[in-house]
């Protein structure tokens, strides 16, 4: 109980830290909001007036505190470029991104976990060596390159899937229009499987070398029972914790995939905001990303702690 509280407290501190860092960073490197809102053509006087009016000429730290208070009210700021509340923008795009991420993740896990275990059990044999070589190759390929190659083969040479993802506003498009989402999903899956499978392989190998596996065999259990009843549960735990920690990478992966396939999600929003220098959006986006990471780490920590706790009690 206390443990939970302490971790949450630390997470909050970290979140605060993130907000401070990002806020300061953006503040330092970006144009003043006045300039951003009125454009490059506007006169300096107009920009200054704008800034004064909206309080953008006060000391940075005071603006930061203001921002925090604003956040607590649930207000994520306003995008002047798009003339929309940031919160609304994010909410519009979030479900689509989340769906894509989730689908890609599930697909990857469904392939990677059995593959990793299979590789561990058949270590050194053909399937292991082949899978490892391929994953080495794929791991060295940037995700956008994978996407481009896929487009090249399955969209141009063999016109099977469209090169652009569905532009529909519905997040369920992954299921309703699988053809248009196929390539983005495959790209995401490939980039994830490569990492997950190798990870699962070494986790499974580590468990296979453990004494209790030997003991299970000494009881007369067949290989199948050894794998399912003994190995499985112990080999999968590491990768579950890994998934929790990998959420930020998934989001970034999304960014590239969304860019390549022009999928209207958070990632594309971020990129466009970057080009447009729409800083309120960038700020809110990074903050959300950070928050998700922190939450992901917290959950992973809790899972690990629960297992550790049992060890602590046992001592």
């Amino acid at each position, binding site marked *: 109980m206390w443990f939970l509280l*302490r*971790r949450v407290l630390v997470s909050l501190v970290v979140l605060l830290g993130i907000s401070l860092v990002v806020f300061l960073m953006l503040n330092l490197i970006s144009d003043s909001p006045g300039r951003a809102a009125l454009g490059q053509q506007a006169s300096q006087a107009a920009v200054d007036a704008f800034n004064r009016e909206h309080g953008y000429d006060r000391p940075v730290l005071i603006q930061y505190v203001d921002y925090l208070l604003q956040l607590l009210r649930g207000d994520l700021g306003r995008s002047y470029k798009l003339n929309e509340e940031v919160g609304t923008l994010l909410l519009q795009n979030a479900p689509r991104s989340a769906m894509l991420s989730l689908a890609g993740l599930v697909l990857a896990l469904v392939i990677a976990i059995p593959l990793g275990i299979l590789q561990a059990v058949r270590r050194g044999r053909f399937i292991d060596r082949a899978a490892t070589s391929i994953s080495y190759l794929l791991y060295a390929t940037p995700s956008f390159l994978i996407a481009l190659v896929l487009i090249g083969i399955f969209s141009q040479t063999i016109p099977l899937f469209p090169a652009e993802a569905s532009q529909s506003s519905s997040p369920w498009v992954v299921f309703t229009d699988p053809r248009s989402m196929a390539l983005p999903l495959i790209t995401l899956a490939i980039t994830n499987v490569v990492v997950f499978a190798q990870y699962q392989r070494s986790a499974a190998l580590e468990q296979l070398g453990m004494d209790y596996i030997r003991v299970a065999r*000494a*009881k007369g259990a067949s290989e199948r029972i050894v794998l399912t009843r003994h190995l499985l549960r112990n080999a999968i735990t590491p990768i579950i914790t890994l998934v929790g920690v990998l959420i930020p990478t998934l989001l970034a992966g999304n960014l590239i995939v969304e860019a390549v396939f022009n999928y209207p999600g958070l990632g594309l929003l971020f990129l466009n905001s970057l080009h447009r220098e729409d800083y309120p959006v960038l700020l809110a986006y990074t903050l959300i990303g950070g928050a998700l990471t922190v939450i992901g780490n917290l959950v992973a920590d809790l899972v690990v702690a629960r297992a550790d706790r*049992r060890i602590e009690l046992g001592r």
Partner: protein
Amino acid sequence: MLTIRDLSVEITHGDRIVRPVTGVDLELHRGETLGIVGETGSGKSMTGLAVMGMLPGGGRVVSGSIDFDGTELVGLGDAAYRRIRGNDISMVFQDSMTSLNPTRSVGDQVAEPLQLHRGMSLRAARRSAAEMLALVGIPRPQERMGDFPHQLSGGMRQRVMIAMALICEPRVLIADEPTTALDVTIQAEILELLGELKQQLGMAMILVTHDMGVVVRHADRVGVMYGGRLVETGRTADLFRSTRHQYTHALLASIPTLAQDKDVELFSIPGSPPDPADPQIGCRFAPRCAAATERCRTETPRPVAGPGEGHLFACWNPVDERQATREVRRFDASGIASSETDAQPVRLSVVDLRKEHPVSAKGVFGRRRSVKAVAGVSFEVRAGEAFGLVGESGCGKSSLGRMLVALDAPTSGEVLLDGDRVSGLSPRRLGSRRAKLQMMFQDSHASLDPKMRIDAILCEPMIIQGIGTAEERAERARALLAGVGLGASILERYPHELSGGQRQRIGLARALALDPDVLVADEPVSALDVSIRSQVLNLMRGIQRERGLSSVVISHDLAVVRYLVDRVGVMYLGALVEVGATDEVYTRPAHPYTAGLLAAVPVADPDLADTPVDRVHGELPSPLDPPSGCRFRTRCPLATDLCARVEPVLEDVGDDHAVACHFPLQPKLRETTTAEALTAGEAR
């Protein structure tokens, strides 16, 4: 029941071929216990694994046969072997922590063999498992069924392993070092349990171990293995009384016993056990054998019958009656003899030392629990005296050791060197006294920087303390090496190139580099093979006498401590329960725990094997929550109400013999009344 003939095992690692077992002949009869004894690389474990058909990857039986009640096991198909494993032949392994699945309950794991071999349902199997847990002596078995391995203590886990192995009532049980990782008192209980169960279930048992004392008490017949070969086998009594093979003889002679004469050097076997990867020509023991001849080096000895039924040995120059009374070498008379130390000044003084470790701070907001590792220990060590600290795991001796050399600061209390405080000081305040307190570590592998050469390791203390020029330091390094019996060629080597015994000597040499007044040796030989231990022990004893060093030897091995020290303190759960002259404490123990410890130590003497043992029962309480009053009361047969209320203090029972007990086994010099005991207890 089980007949092994000419068994040879090979393991292929890439292009390297290793032969851990060569030409072994063994027999196991119904209802008997066969002990297989050997050191590292002897092939004893591999033999057991071969019987189970569980050789490691790349391993296979290349020749020989294993006949199990008419069935040939070598070359048996997988499915048939699986039916036998866990069912007709079972195995118990050494490390119970890693041998149990951490994510399945204990009950399920014990029940599993029944599901596999008897086709029972999970529920029915679980019922039988609970009964089995009771049979192996686990209290409240029904509650333990749902526990996970890490929630149980080492002794409990080993019982679970035994339950798992025996639940299908196999005809043969192979126990591979079943008690090596356990405390001496628990070890005795587990071994007795195995003996009882063996009789109850009418099994035959193979007991694989490196400890000669264990086989004496628990095995009917013994096979001694060395370098992958069986060198001698026969009935236990015959083997010990009429030893024929030189190795067996040397091994028995080199083990310090509880009755060891301190002024005599231990019989020492030079060199180390052979590497299984080396090709074998002739007798594998020849390089280390004092009686080796040319024939031994070129021709592999063939088994010959000796006195006694079924007694076989393979040696060209066996032990004869003359040699049986080995020559005795006494230590030089120079240096301070143990009898003179009383007149010497007190060098090291420990006053009410306490050490508490807070339990891992994984967010403990509420109760701040701490492990009370050392709870108020006081004693003195005089100049030139060797003091021993014995105890089992969790007694706090290692924590105490670190505080003695000012490596850790005590929570309260003091350590005084020549009257000056050395505990809890900053390195600067400690100053030149730092050099006077040195330590020899248990694990030489971890205590020598793997990236440093030996000459750098030996010179480092002198460099740090700014002693001498580079030449003088090099000279001193060479002298130190010679002092521990090593040649100067070692200077250019790295630690991983040396054997365990050599590394341990380097550790000792380094500790002596600064010419300390006090040397603390923490488990100096526990990590070494049995045949090498005596080398290091002789060395330590010799050096201690020569230099008049005050030394503190910390060990769980009572025989080692007996051999090395003049006075000894017995620790239990952080408290010193008995202290006094070694001879006194060992022959007339006053504390029930000491008596139980001494009784539990396996002694390699068949004549003592049958004496009834007054053992210590039960499990070690958690150091987080030691029992109130006398810490030992939960396991003491003499415990009363008083013991629960008042913690006893050290009181004299002899000239140099004190004990902390309300009902000591030796009468107190001054009888304290209950009232006095109460006030003394409250003062703590």
